[in-house]
């Protein structure tokens, strides 16, 4: 990275994601009426929450050279389990059960990838289908509406739309915690170093005494952990837990955020801040389209173009 000095192009490359975000904000400042209103920011915060949570886990997973496309299904399962159980055993115990089951699924993935050397893509593809099925079975094929669940359901709905001090959405709390936690882990801890080492060279890392299977189980476990919370928060926001649609395509948003943020798909490096910028870019695109009455289908096309462009810009860096 020292080479970036004095070479503007390399600088641009390094901060390409941030530059892109600034560009989109600038475009909106000129074109979108009412863009700079507190309401816009609040919108971004509530909507980006599941993406940020999943993409924090995904940053870790991708930095080990793997991928986890089961997070959307894990979101659904965790949301549905919480909704089903909370009327009986209360909100917190239900949440605990959902999170524990999710973590176990994540650890299972880590074990399959690390110990049995299966492709992460294949293992999590299987889980994506399987866990989605479990979610639908648990909710009995019907969407669970929180307003029909009595007090505890209403309580969770209110949680989901709670505003701190009357105007900041509650979603800022899990976002801040997740980002802080993962950032500290990557930058400051032994575990963070080991995760990146395993991602860069599994063989060398094992020979340097790192328990690579354990590391992968932790990483996939964390990915599922974040997805579990994302599922519950998302369900709380819309006041419904639907086994078939909750968290659908969330894995793709998360992967896109990570890739746009500059974490190389081959592993070895984790750019936590980049991932946040990546998630913001996609959210701003959605918002731009919504606020200018452009159909969502166009937003999808835009996003696709941005993802490909991001990968293109970063291909030099990641080599």
């Amino acid at each position, binding site marked *: 990275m020292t080479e970036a000095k004095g070479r503007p192009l390399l600088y641009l490359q390094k901060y390409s994601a941030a530059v892109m975000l600034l560009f989109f904000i600038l475009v909106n400042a000129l074109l979108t009426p009412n863009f700079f209103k507190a309401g816009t920011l609040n919108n971004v915060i509530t909507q980006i929450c599941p993406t940020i949570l999943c993409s924090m886990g995904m940053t870790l997973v991708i930095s080990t050279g793997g991928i986890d496309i089961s997070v959307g299904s894990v979101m659904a399962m965790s949301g549905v389990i919480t909704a089903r159980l909370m009327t009986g055993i209360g909100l917190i115990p239900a949440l605990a059960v959902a999170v524990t089951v999710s973590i176990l699924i994540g650890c299972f993935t880590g074990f399959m990838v690390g110990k049995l050397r299966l492709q992460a893509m294949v293992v999590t593809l299987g889980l994506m289908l399987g866990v989605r099925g479990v979610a639908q079975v648990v909710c009995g094929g019907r969407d669970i509406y929180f307003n029909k669940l009595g007090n505890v359901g209403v309580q969770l709905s209110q949680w989901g739309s709670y505003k701190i001090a009357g105007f900041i959405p509650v979603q800022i709390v899990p976002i801040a915690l997740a980002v802080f936690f993962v950032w500290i882990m990557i930058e400051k801890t032994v575990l963070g170093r080991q995760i990146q*080492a395993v991602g860069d*060279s599994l063989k060398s890392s094992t020979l*340097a005494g790192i328990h690579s299977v354990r590391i992968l189980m932790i990483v996939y476990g964390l990915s599922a952990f974040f997805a579990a919370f994302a599922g519950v928060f998302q369900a709380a926001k819309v006041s419904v837990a639907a086994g078939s649609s909750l968290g659908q395509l969330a894995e793709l948003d998360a992967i896109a955020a990570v890739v746009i943020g500059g974490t190389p798909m081959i592993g070895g490096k984790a750019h936590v801040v980049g991932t946040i910028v990546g998630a913001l870019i996609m959210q701003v695109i959605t918002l731009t389209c919504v606020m200018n009455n452009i159909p969502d289908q166009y937003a999808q096309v835009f996003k696709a173009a941005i993802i490909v462009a991001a990968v293109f810009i970063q291909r030099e860096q990641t080599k």
Partner: protein
Amino acid sequence: MAETLLEIEGLEKSFPGVHALKGVRLRVQKGEVHALMGENGAGKSTLIKVLTGIYQKNGGTIRFDGEEINVRTPMEANEKGISTIYQELNLVPFQTVYENLFLGREPLSRYGQIDRKKMIAEARKILNELGVSIDVTRPLGKYSTAVQQMVAIARAVSINAKLVIMDEPTSSLDSKEVQVLYRIIRQLKSAGISVIFISHKLDEIFEICDRMTIFKDGEYVGDYDIQEIDQLRLVSLMVGRDMAKLERTKREYGFSDMKPIAELKNIRQGMRLNGINLDIRQGEVVGLAGLLGSGRTEIAQILFGSVMPDEGEIFWLGEKAPIHSPADAIRRGMGFCTEDRKTEGIIPHLSVRENMTIALLPRLQTFGFVKTKKQNAIVKNYIDRLKIKTPSPDQAICNLSGGNQQKVLLARWMCMNPKLMILDEPTRGIDVGAKAEIEDLIRELSSGGISVLMISSEIAELERNCDRIIVIRDGKVTGELTGEEISQNSIMEMIAKNGLEEVKKHD
């Protein structure tokens, strides 16, 4: 005969912050085997990459076969008649031999289909001319590295190359295979094809090359006929100072009374190890000698826990010690510098700092957080002590030269205060200067009471550094030499003699 094929004058190449080639020259005659010599980082590889179009030059001229050229892609270099055989073979192991030979230039039949019959026939012809008779319809990956190398050479020759560049072609070959390679090089020579040969093994240079050009720090030092120079002078020119001749300094064996630190008892593993018994005593340097494939590396892997034995026991400091993983071995005080530095040593994109301390990190923490100050102090200490050349500790290790990478890996284990260091081919692919430094380091370790288990294909290296030498053959210990008994001849005799006895038994 004295017709010039390649003439490079005043070649310049800079990278940001590095002036890699400072106006170098190189002149290669037709039908000549020309050695390109210099330490790691002297600019040999950069020159090759400019010549083959991977890098673009910043100045100077390249004349090839009478015309000035400036190739922009490796493909273009190929078309002009320059082909390169890299250290890492760029072939496709899952495809057949003949498909590899014609990769990217498959002959087509009349209907635009690939003409396999023609390919097979041609492939057989080309390989036969080189004296390699193999089944060309089998996947390339089924054959040994040596055969794969031959296929790479055949491929290079069959595109009507006028110049073949070989970058460390012998690093993965055993001595018999090297002889086959030499034969092929001589054939190329008699066909008027020139060869640029890069190798760190000086004996090879003197055996096969006609002329040599020496670089140092990106500058041209001179070119010499092979007859007008000897090894010592060559090394001095490459390093830029007079070298003391590397010699055996060890004399008597004084470790008989020391207690063993590690013992292997009746270790069996697959087809490779058939009942290995050996011990390593405190502070001694034990060398494992034997041919490629004799089981040397497997012994190291079992001791370090990266491969499990089928049978047998490991004792550590006199107690039975099951070792199930490298982490187990490290906890007991072992360090292992593997043979294959690139895939089983360095963590390529991590910094020098992280690479050096990756094994130490679990001891460098409070509540999981890295003690950065202590880490930096340790890293700085070892960079100074081992004279590791790196712009900063933050540099990614893959940007360092081979010798410096190896020093970082040695530091990785030294900072753990190990009791036993296992070094598998510690100086492979490393230039003479760094080699001497690493050998000094081995002596230093041993005088500090650390035991060293050293594996090397270079008998001279074993002779210089070891207190005791154990000869391995077909997965068994077949002999042992200590102290004064050790000489290159005695080691070679022991490797050979045991072979003869084996043959007799079979008769």
